[in-house]
């Protein structure tokens, strides 16, 4: 339940039936609509230091593939990428109460770093590692 106190007051068997009914309804609706939903996926996104006009001070890289996560975290979640247990539960609760509980979000689950090599104001050269700059994997949270 999205509202904890109300959920605890209701009959224990009733929410169970409600979830099952909701799942059946969603399955039927999905089948009837007849389109495949674009699930949570990693998409191409290239950040170009050259386009920013920084090639006078950034030696390398010229840019890097950062990627981004986009797509719907829709039922059944386990057919998509890396859904957490909580995301699956949240999806079910969303069916029951879509106005209150949103669908889970498609977001990065693994990130990687990049290294940037650049000149400073004194023409010294700096090589620095930056964490969490590149999406390695996406998932539903």
């Amino acid at each position, binding site marked *: 339940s999205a509202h904890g106190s109300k959920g605890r007051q209701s009959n224990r068997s009733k929410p169970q039936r409600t979830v099952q009914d909701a799942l059946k309804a969603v399955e039927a609706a999905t089948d009837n609509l007849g389109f495949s939903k674009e699930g949570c996926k990693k998409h191409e996104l290239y950040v170009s230091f050259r386009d920013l006009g920084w090639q006078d001070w950034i030696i390398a890289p010229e840019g890097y593939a950062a990627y981004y996560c986009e797509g719907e975290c829709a039922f059944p979640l386990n057919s998509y990428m890396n859904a957490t247990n909580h995301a699956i539960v949240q999806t079910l609760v969303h069916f029951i109460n879509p106005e209150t509980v949103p669908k889970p979000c498609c977001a990065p689950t693994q990130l990687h770093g990049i290294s940037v090599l650049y*000149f400073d104001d004194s023409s010294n050269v700096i090589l620095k590692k930056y964490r969490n700059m590149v999406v390695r994997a996406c998932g539903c949270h």
Partner: protein
Amino acid sequence: NFSMDNEVRSSFIQRRLRSQERREMQREILSILGLPHRPRPHVHTKHNAAPMFMLDLYNTISTDAEPHGYSYYKPALPTQASPMVTSQDSRFLDDADMVMSFVNLVEQDQDLLHQQHRREFRFDLSRIPEGEAVTAAEFRIYKDFVQERYENETFIVSIYQVLQAPSNSEVELLLLDQRDIWAAEEGWLVFDLTPTSNLWLVKPEQNLGLQLVLEDSHGHRRNPRLAGLVTGTGPQDKQPFMVAFFKASEVRFRSIR
């Protein structure tokens, strides 16, 4: 009644950024990179020794990262005669969050005017960001092949830390490292500067530079050029420089924007 693909695409507005927006975006990315403003290097060439060495280090990291499944642009590299990155550098690199090279601030003419048998080097360590601790530091100088008549000779290269400014009185020196070299040798000589760099970071006023002294096998001081040491004049890709490896000693938070 629309496809999900269209829904995804329509959430992104595709348009050209206005110049103000472009500047703000650049400012935000600079903030992520930990830079207060866009660097404006006054004199630089990517073919100097220090940038080339740093590019070698960069490529070492990039090569290591590839098997993990992500890749990014690798620039076309200038080729060089001998590899500059040693296995020890690779070990330092594994442990480092940041590596920084420093240009020699002593001008060639000034250096030649004062010294015939020793060379001075100075490096400005004041621009190191706070919270970075030096894990290793090196002074690197290139030794060229020398003329035939010295081919079988050996020399001793000594690196000293200057303890007292020359203008005050007699120069006080502290021996940091020493190396026996053959005249016929060619390549980069690497001297450890780790304790000295740490001292200079804590007490910048004691950063009075380094001195290099060359002696022949009879103990006589000689001009470093005689042994093929590239100290000031010479090719850009063989100029001496200092490099330091850093590890962040504290977690730094970005300011709220």
